[in-house]
């Protein structure tokens, strides 16, 4: 075994171990330890992606000294490497971008604990991406839930506390359903490792045994993770949680934690149940309808908001709906589109939340659109970053959002029939609605009388914020201009999943 094959293990263990150390460090030291560790994880993910390109196949990695049916395994492939790289990079940039707000929003003596939670989230996300064992997935899922709850209520101002309570209740419901489904899976197949379960599932489905329990289990996993990732009817905790917490937390929650659950769901479909079995149960139809509904309703609700961060939060709900819609198409092209949307949305939402944080800093910490009028002139970096993110969400060419829409349309044309019409209709309606609400927000940022523009005081944004915005914006553009390698890697990754 080559040395680089240890990378996924190190990417899980390093932030986990460092979280323990960070908890006893003081503010400044804790901050830089966390940032360095997350940067290191990002570097390792990039290295893994490069090595995987050359290696050309996925590999299981044994944890400890017990082989497959008894021991615990993680498994790395090109798709996992790309997603891990995206998650860790967005994590790093979200923490950097929100540093100034963190210093203001969180009590000085508790700041190190916030960074502990960032590290725990990183570790748990990496574990969710790489794990090959369903119960490990559950344990790290719960670590993510707990860390996310602390990230929300770290900001003791306003309604953050009630938002955290509501978040926790719905997420515990989701975890409960997920745990129940895992118990049923173990009961049906007698295995906990994904590869073994998949073999057994194929066998059971070929013999036509346990059809109802298998459908039940797939439904439970889908609903459990659907609740946790804020699928439309279960989104009620989203707006408060995303708009009341500090900008870093909203960026992490919307672009990493929800996407982490979604990636886990895709992984369960492919690696645990096998796509064939999933399609036979017809669960794809349910996902399709819920996703389409979520994409439209999320946008409709966003139009009504006057608070910029609540608006972006509802836009998140719509984008999550998009991902379910693509999964509901049920073809490999649909899954590729879903995975690409996970990556593109993670980068773009982090950019929007960080930029929105910067804009409200320059506007006496107000988040409602009337107070943000002319904010671009006070804080040009954040204004430009927000504009770019918003244009990408609308789907302007050369930006990642455009490629998302193109790949959705391609996947839709591939299946034809009613579903094609459905996907295209949702694309058109949601693009129009996106244009409406993001357009209104952008107009507010730029609208100011000629005379007043010169009077606006420039707000100094800080180097970390500028770097974070610039890099996130650069990635959004890069994903739009050079999407081919990423899409190709995702396609290869799904083949390795098989």
């Amino acid at each position, binding site marked *: 075994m080559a040395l680089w094959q240890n990378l996924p293990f190190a990417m899980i263990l390093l932030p986990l171990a460092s979280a323990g150390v960070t908890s006893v460090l003081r503010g400044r030291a804790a901050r830089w330890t966390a940032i360095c560790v997350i940067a290191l994880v990002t570097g390792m993910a990039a290295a893994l992606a490069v090595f995987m390109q050359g290696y050309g196949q996925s590999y299981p990695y044994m944890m400890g000294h017990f082989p497959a049916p008894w021991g615990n395994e993680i498994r790395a492939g090109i798709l996992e490497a790309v997603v891990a790289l995206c998650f860790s990079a967005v994590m790093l940039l979200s923490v950097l971008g929100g540093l100034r707000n963190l210093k203001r929003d969180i009590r000085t003596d508790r700041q190190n604990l916030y960074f502990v939670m960032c590290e725990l989230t990183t570790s748990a996300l990496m574990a969710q991406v790489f794990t090959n064992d369903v*119960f490990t997935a*559950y*344990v790290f899922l*719960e670590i993510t*839930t*707990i860390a996310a*709850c*602390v990230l929300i*209520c770290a900001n003791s101002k*306003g*309604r953050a*506390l*009630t938002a*955290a*309570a*509501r978040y*926790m*209740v719905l997420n*515990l*419901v989701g*975890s*409960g359903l997920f*745990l*129940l489904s895992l*118990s049923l899976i*173990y*009961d049906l197949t007698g295995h*906990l490792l994904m590869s073994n379960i998949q073999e057994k599932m194929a066998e059971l489905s070929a013999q036509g045994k346990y059809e109802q329990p298998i459908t039940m289990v797939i439904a439970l996993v889908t609903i459990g993770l659907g609740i946790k990732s804020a699928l439309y009817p279960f989104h009620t905790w989203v707006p408060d949680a995303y708009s009341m917490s500090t900008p870093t937390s909203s960026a992490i929650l919307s672009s990493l934690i929800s996407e982490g659950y979604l990636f886990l769901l895709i992984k369960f479909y492919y690696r645990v149940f096998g796509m064939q079995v999933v399609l036979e149960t017809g669960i794809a139809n349910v996902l399709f309808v819920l996703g389409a509904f979520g994409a439209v309703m999320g946008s409709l609700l966003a139009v009504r908001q006057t608070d910029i961060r609540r608006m972006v939060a509802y836009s998140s709900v719509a984008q999550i709906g998009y991902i379910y819609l693509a999964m509901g198409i049920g073809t490999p092209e649909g899954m590729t589109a879903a995975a690409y949307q996970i990556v593109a949305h993670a980068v773009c939402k982090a950019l929007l939340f960080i930029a929105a944080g910067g804009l409200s800093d320059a506007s006496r910490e107000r988040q409602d659109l009337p107070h943000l009028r002319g904010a671009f002139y006070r804080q040009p970096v954040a204004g430009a970053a927000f504009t770019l993110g918003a244009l990408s969400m609308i789907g302007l060419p050369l930006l990642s959002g455009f490629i998302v829409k193109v790949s959705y349309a391609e996947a839709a044309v591939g299946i034809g029939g009613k579903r094609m019409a459905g996907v295209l209709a949702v694309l058109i309606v949601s693009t129009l609605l996106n244009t409406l609400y993001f357009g209104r927000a952008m107009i507010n940022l730029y609208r100011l009388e000629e005379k007043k523009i010169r009077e606006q005081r420039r707000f100094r944004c800080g180097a970390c914020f500028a770097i974070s915005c610039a890099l996130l914006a650069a990635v959004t553009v890069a994903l739009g201009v050079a999407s081919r390698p990423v899409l190709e890697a995702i396609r290869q990754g799904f083949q390795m999943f098989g």
Partner: protein
Amino acid sequence: MGNLFNNYEEACAIILFGIGFTTLLLHRNMIKKVIGFSMMDSAIYLFLAAKGYIAGRKAPIIENGVQAVEAYINPVPAGLVLTGIVVSVSSTALMLALTVRLYRRYHTLNIDEITEMARKEEV
């Protein structure tokens, strides 16, 4: 119907799960929500434990050098239950801590009233 009586442990577990689930989701009192959560998770542990038990066999601790697989029950579900208990204890602790903070601030445990007060505070 006969199946339900034969597998009474599983049936019981699912009923308990349902009670816990609805309490966690629908009850307004934060403490009762936590109780519901505990109940829901315990129901799953009961289910797992029932699945791991094989009638007439002993706990998987080697006694008098007997190493035959037939002598012992399946130890994996017990391991899962232990891990699960650790996870749910930490979630419960976090929920209780949140409840304490909410109570100190709003002097009530009713989540609807708390949300209402928080909304008024904002304006």
